[in-house]
């Protein structure tokens, strides 16, 4: 499978950082940027997420996979403050994130995208991008009227936005309404907009859903590019080819828990994972009798 893949320096380093890591659920990493302990979320009687221990290695691309209803998106929501767990704690960059509001997580350098793309359809592409920039002086209402206060910053932001759009090959759509973009372009826009916040951790919820095969290749490139620029990427995905292609480490969830961890090659051979996806033991819980 790796025939045509060559690894860059950063990618090699990222892969090597997993050398000594055990292939068990909840494995300890060398230098985790994000950790979670005993995070539990119940909806009525259903336990959606029950993660004992979870770590994301800094500077790597980590994939979070699992069958439908495994709790991946719920876990994402908990980590980013969009939902509150019943119990548990989690840290980002050594800072406890319990009770941190969703808008504060972005300011701390942890940005997410959504499974159902949230492009702001009635704003132009460039306005979508500008919105992503943090700490804008002009976003204070008392400054709004005085363009002189924020014009300089706005120009900087626009320059950065244009660079990112060019990198994502969206510059020709710059002044179009985001509503006129195709599904795949919206995914790109959402990713580019998230980068405007200057994140250290990018969390992508199903970046490939509804994207055509040609665009998937370039999305893969972009995700690798994020790591090469020093960011950490955590993504949820169903497309196994893509997971195998881009990720350095894979964490598998089923029924709200982490059932396996390892490199993409390990995971491809893991019987628990194959069972989880293919349902080898039908009617039996995935957590029993491995």
């Amino acid at each position, binding site marked *: 499978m790796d025939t045509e893949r060559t690894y860059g320096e950063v990618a090699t380093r990222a892969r090597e950082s997993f050398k000594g890591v055990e292939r068990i659920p909840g494995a300890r990493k060398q230098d985790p940027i994000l950790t979670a302990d005993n995070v539990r979320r119940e909806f009525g009687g259903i336990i959606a997420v029950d993660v004992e221990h979870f770590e994301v290695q800094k500077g790597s691309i980590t994939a979070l996979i699992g069958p439908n209803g495994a709790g991946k998106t719920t876990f994402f929501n908990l980590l*980013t403050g*969009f939902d509150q767990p019943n119990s548990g704690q989690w840290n980002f960059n050594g800072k406890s994130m319990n009770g941190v*509001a*969703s*808008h*504060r*997580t*972005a*300011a701390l350098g942890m*940005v*997410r*995208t*959504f499974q159902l793309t*949230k*492009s*702001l*359809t*009635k*704003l132009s592409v460039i*306005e979508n991008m*500008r*919105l*992503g920039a*943090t700490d*804008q*002086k*002009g*976003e*204070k*209402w008392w*400054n*709004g*009227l005085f*363009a002189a206060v*924020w014009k300089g910053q*706005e120009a900087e932001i626009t320059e950065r936005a244009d660079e990112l759009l060019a990198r994502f090959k969206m510059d020709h759509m710059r002044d179009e*309404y985001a*509503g*006129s973009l195709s599904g795949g372009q919206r995914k790109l826009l*959402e990713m580019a*907009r*998230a980068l*405007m*916040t200057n994140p250290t951790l990018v969390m992508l919820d199903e970046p490939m859903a509804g994207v055509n095969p040609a665009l998937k290749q370039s999305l893969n490139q972009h995700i690798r590019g994020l790591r090469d620029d020093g960011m950490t990427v955590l993504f949820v995905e169903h497309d196994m080819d893509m997971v195998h292609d881009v990720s350095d480490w894979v964490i598998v969830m089923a029924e709200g828990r982490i059932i396996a961890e390892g490199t993409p090659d390990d995971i491809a051979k893991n019987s628990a994972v194959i069972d989880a996806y293919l349902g080898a033991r039908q009617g039996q819980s995935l957590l029993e009798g491995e």
Partner: protein
Amino acid sequence: MDWNLIFENTLKGFIGINAVYFAIAALGLNVQFGYTGLLNFGQAGFMACGAYGLGMTAHYFDISFWWGIPIGIVFSVLLGLLMGIPTLRLRADYLAIVTIASAEIIRLVVRSVKFKTYFGGSDGINGFSDSFRSLGNDFGIEEADEYGFWPFKFTGRELWTLIIGWLLVALFGFVVYKLMRSPWGRVLKAIREDEDAVKSLGKNVYSYKMQSLILGGVIGTVSGMIFALDRGSVQPDNYSRDLTFYILTALVLGGVAKVSGSIVGSMMFWGLFTFMDNFLRQVAKDPVSIGNFTIMKSTQVGQLNFILIGITLILLMVFRPQGVFGNRKEMAFDGH
């Protein structure tokens, strides 16, 4: 049929004081509803804050009339906080329910017998606009004199209110226009589209919604003040639900999320209304009868007028849903 009279009155409807206070209130509502997507059905409540702020200052607090302006604004900021704190974290519908109820509560409290000493009950508060009038006289616009030429003929009293009113429309139009082109306005427009996306980019959505609600409310308050100054009185039943919905109608007529839409929509609303009213009155003056069936009686003018306005609006919504100034292209992306 006196076409001259109809023409004169219609023109006055277009630029008259009703259009002025509607335009200001619609600008405020536009900040909330048009740009931020907040369903404020209680704009009348904010207007009442302004009107009673003025009225109570003169009548009850017994201090200079001009204090009424900041007092009215403080009232409306408090009202905005009161409405916003419990509801802005919830879905949009909750704000709609709370605002419509709050505005009604305000109206019922100020017209209640129990608080008659403070608010004047259902008679309201009268005779507090003397300082405002005398300021007009100082500027050389004599209250009792006639100014202008046909068809623009106004008494000094009307003219003074109109000048101040249109200056305020221009001021708030400019403020809203500038703010909505700033990064602050961009955040509001983004919230209208998708709150979660804005949250994920690190903006405190709750705080922005509160700012929008209060700014729109304060603009509405100023509208209520102009209305009260023009009448020289505050009456609780002027601030009922219909007022909010007529303003909303004017806003939609002109086109939401456009400054020009709020202003021209209000002018058109009153222009159309005055034209229909005058036209139908002229028809009723000289009734056409078939046997003992009279086609138009003067008592039917009011009802028929509202029916026709309603039909006009329905037609507008069918054939031009974005309003007169709205952006068709924006409308097209409604379904995401």
